[in-house]
């Protein structure tokens, strides 16, 4: 099964004619082609409708693109000042899956966009995220496909390179992944740990879960409570930022301990109390998962 993305995905790229949009549209197409199908069906760049780019048709609006291509997912590379608008446009076109890669969207823009997303049928991944990959099927995002291996471990993480690190440790030990979801490093994101874990828990292909969090907010604590009550699949967890000073933003807009909230200590305690196998060192994620799976 896997979740969110597979070979039934029909992907459009908002901002397809930009440098990043072009590069990663190709990356997603090439990855899925290895498994028999190009999932990219077109792109959107206002004002460039009617042209083609990299062999794909370009449309002026998301609505037109969906109508013409039957797209069911979008990947957003629109620059930060316009990205929240791009998210709202995708939601209005009722795309089931909206993946926003863009980093640097103003918080108040996302406060506004969230009011639209939360009452919609769309699932928003990100913003400020690497995207989603179901190894052996398809990817929507900027992650390097070849480090992945198809299998049964689901991953959810706020960080890009730290997700790659976890994937790499698993693949090296011969442990494959069902779906890896990069939920993003911003203070306001569409899909949170709790939502991703619910999806992975309900997915028959997923037998175990890696949950990677970081300082800031209380989403990991909320997910830990959900896991305690609902998840029987084993979960291995890590929190980045155990040595981060309070009050400083550690790269990600959302990675900040403020008002006494969002410490690594609090998250690790909640996760341990929920029965999650919490590792102190990021180098122990793969090994711990192998042990938990009895490998």
């Amino acid at each position: 099964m896997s979740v969110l993305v597979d070979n039934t995905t029909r992907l459009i790229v908002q901002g397809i004619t930009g440098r990043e949009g072009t590069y990663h549209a190709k990356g997603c197409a090439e990855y899925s082609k290895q498994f028999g199908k190009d999932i990219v069906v077109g792109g959107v760049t206002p004002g460039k409708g009617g042209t083609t780019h990299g062999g794909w048709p370009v449309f002026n609006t998301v609505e037109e693109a969906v109508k013409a291509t039957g797209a069911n997912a979008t990947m957003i590379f629109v620059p930060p000042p316009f990205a929240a608008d791009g998210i709202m446009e995708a939601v209005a076109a009722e795309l089931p899956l909206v993946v926003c890669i863009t980093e640097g969207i103003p918080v108040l823009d996302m406060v506004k966009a969230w009011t639209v997303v939360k009452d919609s049928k769309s699932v928003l991944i990100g913003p400020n995220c690497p995207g989603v990959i179901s190894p052996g099927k398809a990817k929507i995002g900027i992650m390097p496909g070849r480090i992945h291996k198809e299998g049964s471990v689901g991953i959810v993480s706020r960080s890009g390179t730290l997700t790659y690190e976890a994937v790499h440790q698993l693949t090296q030990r011969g442990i494959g992944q069902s779906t890896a979801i990069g939920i993003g490093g911003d203070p306001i994101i569409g899909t949170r740990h709790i939502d991703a874990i619910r999806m992975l828990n309900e997915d028959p292909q997923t037998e175990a879960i890696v949950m990677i969090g970081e300082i800031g907010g209380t989403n990991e604590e909320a997910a830990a409570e959900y896991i305690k009550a609902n998840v029987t699949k084993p979960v291995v967890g890590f929190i980045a930022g155990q040595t981060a000073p309070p009050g400083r933003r550690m790269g990600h807009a959302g990675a900040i301990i403020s008002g006494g909230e969002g410490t690594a200590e609090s998250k690790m305690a909640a996760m341990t109390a929920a029965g999650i196998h919490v590792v102190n060192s990021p180098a122990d994620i793969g090994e711990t998962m192998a042990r938990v799976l009895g490998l």
Partner: protein
Amino acid sequence: MKIHEYQAKDILRKYGVPVPEGEMVTTLEEADHAAKQLFSAGNPVVVVKAQIHAGGRGKGGGVKVTKTLDDANTASKAILGMQLVTHQTGPQGQKVQRLLVEAGSAIDRELYLGIVLDRATSKLTFMASQAGGMEIEEVAAENPEAIYKEAIEPALGLQPWQARNLAFKLGLTPAQINPAVSFMLGLYKAFIETDCSLLEINPFITTRDGKLAALDCKINFDDNALFRHKDLKELRDVAEEDPLEVEASKDSLNYIKLDGSIACMVNGAGLAMATMDIIQYSGGSPANFLDVGGGANQQQIEAAFAILLADPNVKAIFINIFGGILRVDVLATAVVAAARNLNVTLPLILRLEGTNVEEGRKILADSGLKYSVGETMAEAAKLAVEAAKA
């Protein structure tokens, strides 16, 4: 982005929020002039306030209440140029280069108002409390019921009834309710129109003659929104920031200085934090957080090296790269060039993985550069800790 109290108060004035009359000064002559004016305008009390970005200024001796011009000048002399130490500055303190000379207020009650993002609901929250003048974090931890909250619907904004709810809960007098509502609506408008990430009035005071005022004000702006506020960008005071962090920001590097001895250069914020963690876990201490990002080029890598080397505490450099968008061969070429140009002699420990890793390793091996390689993050961290202790 942080700004000074006097800048925050200037913004409040524009939004019709009452603040005490005052003037920012940078010399003793200006301070004398400002105090003289305030006394001769009939103010019985003049307050001299150190302007630094850290909180806790009063406890550190950076705020003085004076009743004569002589006292005001003595206070200015004591504070201007002092190395002010508060719980937020660290033991080295922060040099005071600006003063706010302000009319004193006859305080009746000290209250608190604040606007923050509530990450759990993805909405802004307006907070009010009768426990003004205290750290709101302490109030939240010890007595959370003492903080009244109103969640703001983004499409509607703060509504007058919500402000009224808070005003009554603060126990304001009937005559103070409407001014308090205007006060709060003004704060909300300022927050939205200037893209704040935090706005706090602490204390929000009532005076003995029943008036309201923002006695102190803290404003942080959302860095991601500064592109649409050219005027606000100019309020940045780089003298208040760590010089190495200012240098790093010029090259769009995400750098935060810490106290340890192992410098780190990493791509990605999560991996950068995890690298700091594994250094500590391995018995060392990180000298910094540094995310060179996904699109780092030669110039940025060289700038990053220069910044890491400028920290006198650094005993070893740990480069941890998981190439995704950033290709390892590009990184390796940049590292070799930078190490040569800057004549790096400190132990260099590398851990490279991901896109074009083989090419990257070959470039390093052929360069004649002295370095050690950890095959895994754990091994590399161990090498770095040993090198820093040697």
